[in-house]
């Protein structure tokens, strides 16, 4: 997405609200998508310009929310819920299967930049644990044995 296209997309979103500042979250999301899944300094400048705010304000808002990335992440994001319901049905074993299959630990990105793996708080799929969010799409009932196939599927997914 070009700078101009991002600017215009943010204006479209902002027009939905009685006050334009309400568009900060959707604008940050658009900027993150336009910058490879994270928010570099120029992304904050773009959002600030479009909404007539300061980059510092936009960064302060972004840093409050888990879905905004302040550092580069992999092409694919794998988030394993380890909250209580998933934990009770084996989330740790599922997480460790991802760690061993990808050769990284939770919180890290593979050296080729393909995958970021992290734990996440409750995703709201508790009855069907373990829940794993793969590029923001839920996979439920994920067992350690399912992990290699899920990674293969992501490798071949369009992004």
């Amino acid at each position, binding site marked *: 997405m070009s700078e101009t296209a991002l600017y215009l997309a943010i204006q479209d979103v902002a027009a*939905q609200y009685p006050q334009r500042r*309400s568009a900060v979250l959707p604008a940050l999301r658009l900027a993150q998508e336009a910058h490879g899944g994270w928010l570099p300094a120029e992304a904050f400048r773009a959002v600030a310009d479009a909404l007539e705010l300061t980059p510092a304000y936009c960064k302060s808002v972004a840093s409050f*929310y888990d879905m905004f990335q302040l550092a580069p992440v992999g092409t694919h994001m794998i988030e394993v819920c380890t909250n209580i319901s998933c934990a009770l049905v*084996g989330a740790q074993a599922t997480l460790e299967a991802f760690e061993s299959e990808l050769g990284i630990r939770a919180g890290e990105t593979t050296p080729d930049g393909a995958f970021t793996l992290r734990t996440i708080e409750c995703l709201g799929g508790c009855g069907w644990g373990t829940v794993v969010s793969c590029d923001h799409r839920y996979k439920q009932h994920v067992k350690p044995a399912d992990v290699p196939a899920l990674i293969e599927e992501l490798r071949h997914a369009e992004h």
Partner: protein
Amino acid sequence: MPSTEFEQIVLAGADDHDLTKLSEYEKVGGYQSLRKALGMERQAVLDELITASVRGRGGAGFPSGRKASFVPKPEQTTKPIYLTINADESEPGTFKDREIMARVPHRLIEGALITAYTIGSNAVFIYIRGEYLTEYEIVKAALDEARDRGLVGANIAGSSWNCTIVLHRGAGAYICGEETALLESLEGKRGQPRSKPPFPAIAGLYAAPTLINNVETIATVPAVIARGGAWYATLGVENANGTRVFSLSGNVVNGGNYELPLGTSLREVIYDIGGGIPNGRTLKAIIPGGSSTPILRADQIDTALDYDSVAAGGSMLGSGGIIAIDDRACMVQVALRVASFYQHESCGKCTPCREGTRWLVSLITKIEAGQGSNADLDLLVDVCGRIMGRSLCPLGDAAAMPISSYVERFREEFQAHIDQGCCPYGDQSSLDGILGPVQQAARMHRQLAVIA
């Protein structure tokens, strides 16, 4: 008793029809309640909602009709009136609103429109948690379809009434489920709760009168208008009218959402509907209403799921998220995982919650490692007491209530960790080694320290 013996209200028709489609929703009477309401005086619609006495399904349980009555009438204010739907479902163990949005999005939209009409609002915001991408897409498609058919926007259903609906996605913060934090977030700020009063009914979104209702609460509204508040009030039990969509998870055979009359017992939900505890294990404990509610011991299995009965059992009905825990779980590890969540989600605005949740995690970590003393256990209980009732918003209580309940009801397990100098479960607990975002961040920081 299987769930099909009960009449469903919120999820009615969704088993036999694809209610994400407007034409299918209309086949089961969809949008007839909206037309009926638009032909009624606002006060008459409000009276039906008050008679139905649907207690707020987000967790607090406040009667939603009365809550709506606190909003000033359009002629009493110069400001616009807003309706905000809380779809920021994030309480661990709760996943009902996600299912409602995925399966009956038009019922949510219809309920929102009726409620907006009732309070004299022309602008609805639905705040959907950011992780619910698929559900956002489903609600958006339903909204587009309703708009194309003249059910949202100008001159709704041929009337002179106008109302817009905006879908607003969150970005990953449990605290935004708290109503004033939600409003801050919707205004484009960090999601930190406001001091009350003023309450949102008087000064909410953009400092204008605002009603905030949970998804499930709103999704009951079309049925209340179709069949009357008095009819709705006959469902369930006294002081707990109607049905609830209970979320069942943890160590059960059939996890999932089940819409049941209030007053159904935990035994019916966990054993008759949920199929019991898998792998021949024994039930040890039950979290009845989301992870913030005090824990029940297995011998409280006959507790009825209504507000008063669960309160009499020392807990809360909360969000209706029931978590079954079998005998493999170390309760100190359960406490650690739950406390870690609330530490992670504390917004940092007020001291009792920001500092208290860290103290909880640190003390429980020490006890779990076998390095705790009796003084640490006393201090753990003391810290809970110093958070309870002293925080700006309910998040502090949400952290302290469950932790103090684990110590109170499973004190022998905490004591065994101290006396034996290790976890009595060894590495055999179902939660052994569980890594949450708090522990993940601590591990990353340690690695960076080593590299530095």
